[in-house]
């Protein structure tokens, strides 16, 4: 019987706009855009130039410091544009997609017959190594460091998140192959965390893994929280993290020999008229999903990802590399609310009891609803931070860049997404995820 862990701290934000579990079809776009800034911790170097023909799975770029780590093109076609920003940083690479995709053939392989090194090389060569991230630093995993364990999260508790049970229907074989591949890559264990509500057999009856059930509000689905409850990361150790949807992509590589970066994406949010699940590769332009399908007359915020950790895109934006959800909410910059601090309006949502809370779903917009202040209220972050770490003191240590203090307080265990709820409830409206990301990047530069 699987171990059950109850998460007591956290917050389930009641947002309007949950998607119905219907698969509406496949979405493709003429142009597909890959943004290397999605992949933290790597410095991209182009492997193609404008005008080159690529297949799905051909390397578009590789990491400057690990030249065997490639990044695959999700579609076949012609590279039409490489846009650079300041200091010649690559902003995005655009591929004009063929009508039907031609895949690079990497050959389907039997996991049991391979060594760990062969599995690793297969994933690196195929250009999908970026699916594996690591703690500390929450960056793309360094392939040369041996991980103590690998943690896979089998559910997503973020607001409006897709149901893994629904998405993984029919993909159980690929999931198992992916898990088998991961089991080869570590001398330790592969931990698969599922929800008490998970029904999918591929998750519940997975082999080669240690299954743990989690029960509780968001962020119970965050892999960082799961690691902290199961087997925390210590100084000097490395663990790898993935979510189950990405493990399926790895499984597809070994079962079918191709790089199929198709995701089943949930279109969610209070401003979407017809929500649902759509299949598309990463980098697909989303404007066909939005046209005539979103509220008109007000300014909108388009998000690739969930409203807590997602990336702001515009109406012509693309699905970013790690996301399985697209959200549309009101922007709010045209709203003029008077005397908000005295408001008894039932439209205002607050996690605590400083406003009236009713049992309903809320339509929240992108306003900060306050100005930035120093940290005043205590215990606010702790209420939504279930890890055995003091979040406020860790944030202060990061701001001060006190390395000893950060290490002592557990910086190696956290990722910016773990602080997303803290940033949501923050009375002082600080940009906590940005602070943590900057701190982790600076610390990694210091340490390496």
């Amino acid at each position, binding site marked *: 019987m699987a171990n059950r862990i109850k998460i007591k701290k956290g917050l389930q934000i009641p*947002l309007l706009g949950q998607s119905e579990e219907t698969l509406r079809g496949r979405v493709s776009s003429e142009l597909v855009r890959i943004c290397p800034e999605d992949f933290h911790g790597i410095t991209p170097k182009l492997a193609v130039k404008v005008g080159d023909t690529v297949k799905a799975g051909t390397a578009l770029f590789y990491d400057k410091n690990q030249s065997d780590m490639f990044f695959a093109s999700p579609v076949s076609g012609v590279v039409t544009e490489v846009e650079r920003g300041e200091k010649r940083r690559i902003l995005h690479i655009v591929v004009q997609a063929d009508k039907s995709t031609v895949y690079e053939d990497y050959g389907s392989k039997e996991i049991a017959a391979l060594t760990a090194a062969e599995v690793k090389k297969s994933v690196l060569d195929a250009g999908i190594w970026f699916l594996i991230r690591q703690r500390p630093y929450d960056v793309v995993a360094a392939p040369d460091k041996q991980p103590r364990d690998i943690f896979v999260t089998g559910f997503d508790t973020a607001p409006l998140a897709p149901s893994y049970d629904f998405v993984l229907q029919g993909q159980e074989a690929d999931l198992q192959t992916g898990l088998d591949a991961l089991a080869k890559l570590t001398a330790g264990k592969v931990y698969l965390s599922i929800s008490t509500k998970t029904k999918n057999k591929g998750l519940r009856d997975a082999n080669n893994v240690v299954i743990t059930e989690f029960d509780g509000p968001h962020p119970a689905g965050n892999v960082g929280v799961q690691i902290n409850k199961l087997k*925390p990361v*210590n*100084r*000097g*150790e490395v663990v790898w993290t993935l979510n189950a949807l990405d493990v399926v992509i790895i499984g597809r590589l070994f079962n079918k020999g191709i790089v199929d970066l198709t995701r089943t994406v949930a279109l969610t949010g209070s401003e979407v008229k017809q929500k649902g699940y759509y299949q598309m590769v990463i980098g697909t332009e989303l404007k066909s999903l939005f046209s005539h399908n979103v509220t008109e007359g007000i300014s909108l*915020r388009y*998000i690739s990802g969930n409203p*807590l*950790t*997602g990336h*702001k895109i515009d109406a012509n934006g693309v699905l970013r590399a790690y996301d399985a959800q697209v*959200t549309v*909410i009101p*922007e*709010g*910059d*045209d*709203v*003029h*609310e*008077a*005397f*908000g*601090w005295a*408001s008894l309006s039932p439209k*205002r*949502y607050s*996690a*605590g*009891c*400083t*406003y009236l809370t009713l049992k309903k779903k809320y339509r929240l*917009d*992108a*306003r*900060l*609803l*306050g*100005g930035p*202040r*120093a940290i*005043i*209220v*205590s*215990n606010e972050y702790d209420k939504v931070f279930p890890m055995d770490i*003091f979040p406020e003191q860790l944030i202060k240590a990061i701001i001060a860049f006190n390395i000893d203090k950060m290490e*002592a*307080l*557990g910086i190696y265990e956290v990722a910016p997404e773990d602080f997303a709820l803290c940033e*949501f*409830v*923050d*009375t*002082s*409206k600080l*940009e*906590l*995820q*940005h602070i943590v990301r900057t701190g982790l990047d600076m610390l990694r530069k210091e340490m390496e």
Partner: protein
Amino acid sequence: MKALKKYLDKIKPNFEEGGKLHWLYSSFDAFETFLFVPNTTSKTGVHIHDARDSKRTMIIVIVALLPALLVGMYNVGLQHYMAVGQDVTLLTKFIYGLIAMLPLIVVSYVVGLGIEFAMAQVKKEEVAEGYLVSGMLIPMIVPIDTPLWMVAVAVAFSVIFAKEVFGGTGYNIFNVALIARAFLFFSYPSKMSGDQVWVRTADTFGMGGGSVIDGYSGATPLGQIATTDVGRFGEFTFQGITGQPLSISDMFFGFIPGSVGEVSTFAILLGALILIVTGVGSWKTMLSVFLGGLVAVLLVNSFAQNAIMEMPVYYHFLLGGFAFGAVFMATDPVTSARTEKGKWIFGFFIGLIAVAIRVFNPGYPEGMMLAILFMNAFAPLIDFYVIDANIKRRARRASVTTVQ
């Protein structure tokens, strides 16, 4: 409201960089965000935000202070008219108290907010709302007869040296309202203590004129028991200003001499309820202050040598600033311990030390202010040790796995 918003948007460029009134930008921003919720949207990180902000938090504290303020104002009038031996309506008493308090409140806010606005402009930041609460607390803890110029000097001293030099709201070590009170207490002791300052006997703005009755004594109950010759508590009676005996009900509802905020335990408890229900004040701190006081009183009762040492615990809670300090001063999140375990220790020692000062030093029948300031200095140390336990646990976990 739309027209007002349009007007503000029209004049805003004057206050921004390059405009001729750019040196007033922080003040403009403060008034604009007072009237309208800022509609800046998030640039990085989370896209949605909780509706609670600093303004909401401070307003809730002010709402929690209102019962104590209103009852205290009524009591100022009640004590005055008892002192001059006149029989008037409830409303008259309340209005007298209101116009007696108003100058104190106005001076406190004008001086305090003036300094805050100026400092925010110098730092080129938004005006923080911390002083909204301190500005209301200060008039409620000083004697009603405090000269206005003293209040102004104390507020200026406290806001500059106990708050702004540290960096403003969120950075201060000591409770701003209590530093103002302590400044007054140590600089002008004759005006701050004794039995002449707690009841206003003179008329206010022409209202309530009259001559003080014979047998009038303005000593507070704590002041009486601290200076009494009576040896046993059982033989002692608390007296009101006309010499009438004070009942528990008088003390609970707040019809005794004292500062406006501290007299009504009933109103303070209402405020405590508001703070706890909204989650703005920590019930752990409040409860542990009372527990610390209880332990101290029981200890002191056991080897009591005079009347004040024999005083039972509920008198300690009803009299003086104990309850007010426990609910509104100790719970100030910036100056109290920030860890949950730390709050228990912090509050406990406040209660303990407050009772100890009251009972052992007849010069200070009011120990709450000093106890809280003392523990404010120790709050970071308490937090340090609580966090250190977490740090040690993490380090031990790391060394255990490497040994394996």
